[in-house]
């Protein structure tokens, strides 16, 4: 049925052409006035195989919904929509080759490509300077590009239901990010840099491959929701702590640092000076020790808001360096003062 103008809802700059079995968009019957006044165009649930360039005739368009069609490409014409703020294109057949070259020039604030066939986030998408909300859930993404940090206005990033195995630390460079969804992926670890996401309010990590979390996660002050179900999180205390004995170089370095033995650039070759600069302080505040390469990976169970035991990973200088509060370091019933988080810090932990 091609009765378009009559079928459309009238008024308020809204043109509703959804669910009309359209395979093309014939705009001849639409008045010039109507074309000029339309702000919202609904073309979802039709049979469009490609986005017709006639859409660019709605030159004041701000909102376009082309979800649930058979789209495998988005035409060049869309880049002429100089006022387009919202593009919803869920459930189509789009991939990273479907977008026109100048797509990155659109003033888009909301972009939704969920339910398509993207294997990569296309570079045009990470060029959108005003983008606040990006959804590419339910696709085939294998990774997140480092260029994601260019989306400096981004507040919402939905990448659930993909094949992502790692989170690039560049995600931490998004200063306004408040909602980050990475559920149903293949993520094995969370980069500690995410602690810089001061605006993060909700983090969805359920159904991944996490065995622990970095202890830095406790610094996410505004985090109110955290979902972790369906991860192989370590429950019982890891009794077997593998430890490579330190080299002589390391032992010498440790002695110099922990006893504050003075040294001067003229005394040592530059490679040793560099090595001494790499000393890390043992995270146990009661231990004055340092370590270079040889450290013990220790999974600490932190009482999160007095409710759960979250395994957090940190490094100790040696297996003898135990937590200050426990008499029995092999117990998983401990709760460390240094690590306990005030209840108001994290109100809702979406574990379950």
């Amino acid at each position, binding site marked *: 049925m091609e009765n378009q103008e009559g079928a459309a809802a009238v008024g308020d700059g809204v043109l509703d052409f959804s669910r009309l079995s359209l395979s093309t968009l014939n705009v001849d019957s639409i008045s010039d006035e109507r074309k000029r006044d339309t702000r919202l165009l609904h073309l979802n649930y039709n049979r469009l195989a490609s986005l017709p360039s006639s859409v660019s005739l709605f030159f004041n368009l701000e909102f376009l919904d082309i979800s649930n069609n058979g789209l495998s490409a988005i035409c060049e014409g869309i880049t002429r929509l100089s006022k387009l703020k919202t593009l919803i294109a869920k459930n189509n057949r789009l991939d990273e080759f479907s977008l026109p070259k100048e797509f990155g020039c659109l003033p888009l604030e909301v972009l939704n490509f969920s339910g398509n066939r993207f294997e990569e986030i296309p570079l045009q998408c990470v060029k959108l300077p005003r983008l606040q909300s990006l959804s590419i859930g*339910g696709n085939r993404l294998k990774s997140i590009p480092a260029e994601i940090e260019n989306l400096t206005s981004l507040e*919402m990033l*939905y990448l659930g239901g993909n094949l992502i195995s790692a989170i690039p630390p560049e995600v931490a460079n998004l200063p306004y990010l408040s909602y980050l969804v990475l559920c*149903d992926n293949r993520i094995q670890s969370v980069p500690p840099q995410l602690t810089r996401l001061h605006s993060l309010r909700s983090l969805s990590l359920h159904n991944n491959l996490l065995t622990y979390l970095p202890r830095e996660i406790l610094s996410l002050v505004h985090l109110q929701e955290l979902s972790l179900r369906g991860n192989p999180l370590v429950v019982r205390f890891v009794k077997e702590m593998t430890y490579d004995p330190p080299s002589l170089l390391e032992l010498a370095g440790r002695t110099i640092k922990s006893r504050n033995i003075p040294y001067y650039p003229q005394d040592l070759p530059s490679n040793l000076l560099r090595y001494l600069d790499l000393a890390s302080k043992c995270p146990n505040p009661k231990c004055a020790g340092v370590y270079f390469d040889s450290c013990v990976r220790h999974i600490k169970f932190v009482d999160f808001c007095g409710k759960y035991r979250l395994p957090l990973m940190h490094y100790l200088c040696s297996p003898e360096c135990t937590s200050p509060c426990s008499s029995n370091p092999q117990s998983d019933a401990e709760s460390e003062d240094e690590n306990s988080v005030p209840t108001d810090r994290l109100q809702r932990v979406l574990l*379950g």
Partner: protein
Amino acid sequence: MEQTEVVKPETLEDLIKILHKIFESDCINVEEVQNIMEAYESNPNEWMKYAMFDQYRYTRNLVDEGNGKFNLMILCWGEGHGSSIHDHTDSHCFMKLLQGQLKETLFEWPEGKSQGDMVQKSQRILQENKVAYINDSIGLHRVENVSHTEGAVSLHLYSPPFDTCQTFDQRTGHKNRVKMTFWSKYGDRTPFETTVSQENN
């Protein structure tokens, strides 16, 4: 027990009227309530005003207080939103899908002091217009919208009404009592209530 004719509720208002009548008696026929709720064919125009989605988590929107006998509410689940494992504080719980789909996972109550993974009993995907029923003697459940592209809307009836429940950690069986709050009541947003929510999802 009286046999009531199954009258098909034509609208949501109709359904609410019929529910008020059914719940006048103190004795609840679970099947009867389930059939009545299932017979109502979801019409978004009738419930849209209660369906307020939140970006970050699912919302509970009160529709009717059932003369104190039950609470009827609409829950809105954004993509990926899910609940914690929870009980129903000795009440009946009916859940009808108004839009989209929800996954329900049933769990056994954790036994005594045992500290291990909670035992999963079964899992199913509820389709539009279907009604699920649960109470504490059946077990515990987690409800999730597993779609990454569509939101889901469900209609819940709890009798008697309750405002606290227990949430459970799937890995250890640890439980915690939480207060539940409403995002909106009768179509009006109720923000101050929500900010003190401790619900654990």
